């Protein structure tokens, strides 16, 4: 099958599994338009994969350090969260977004004031995968 991708980012835009005119003919059309193309044996995961150095590989994860699952809800017990690469993020509590960072942050030390589950959604730049971490406060 044919994988069509953005040459700059490696982001997969199409997976062509069959073409009447043949995959090579479709590949030639995309090549002529400047897209990246790759013939592969297995259907890649459209969301989880990208093309790097001429191969379909899994998108990398954001590295999170300083993470602990449980924290005291006293406003003083700090979790020194750090991300590599820096990420935009949302913090959710009971389904509501209670805090957002619209610009990427590499260091996000937090403490919480209320007991409950806090979900931190990380939005890194492509090709890194979005990630979600949960912190429970008691």
């Amino acid at each position, binding site marked *: 099958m044919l994988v069509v991708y953005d040459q700059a980012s490696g982001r997969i835009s199409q997976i062509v599994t069959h073409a009447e005119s043949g995959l090579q003919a479709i590949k030639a059309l995309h090549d002529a338009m400047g897209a990246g193309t790759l013939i592969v044996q297995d259907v890649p995961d459209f969301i989880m994969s990208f093309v790097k150095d001429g191969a379909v590989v899994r998108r990398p994860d954001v590295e999170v350090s300083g993470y602990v699952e449980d924290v005291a809800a006293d*406003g003083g017990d700090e979790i020194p969260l750090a991300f590599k690469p820096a990420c935009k993020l949302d*913090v959710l*509590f*009971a389904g*509501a*977004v*209670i*805090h957002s960072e619209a610009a990427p942050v590499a260091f*996000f*030390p*937090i*403490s*919480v*004031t*209320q007991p*409950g589950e*806090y979900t931190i959604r990380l939005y890194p730049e492509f090709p890194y995968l979005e990630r979600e971490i949960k912190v429970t406060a008691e």
Partner: protein
Amino acid sequence: MKLDPMPMLRVSATLKINERFNAIAATNLHRDHAYRRKREVANAVMRSESLDAAHPFAREARMRGISVRELADVVAAKADTIDQREGERQRLLLEIEAATTPDAITAILATISD
């Protein structure tokens, strides 16, 4: 960064309360409007203002077989549902403002769920 969910939970709860009351108001739109209009006329009748016989209020009194004054008494005796609902909405909003925990907000919202 000290994360306090309460400010955004209060905003979210306020939106839910307003949405709920808007839905109730939409369901009762004609009746509320008609009652409010009739209450104005009833008050005028009770102030002894004259009412034309062709006025819808006078027509309704004839349809019911009662006098204009009797209909005015009936209408004036009914509670103002719009004012009642607004009082209830304000009470809930003040409770949300005073809530100090997420569980307290959840409990308040549970009282207005369908």
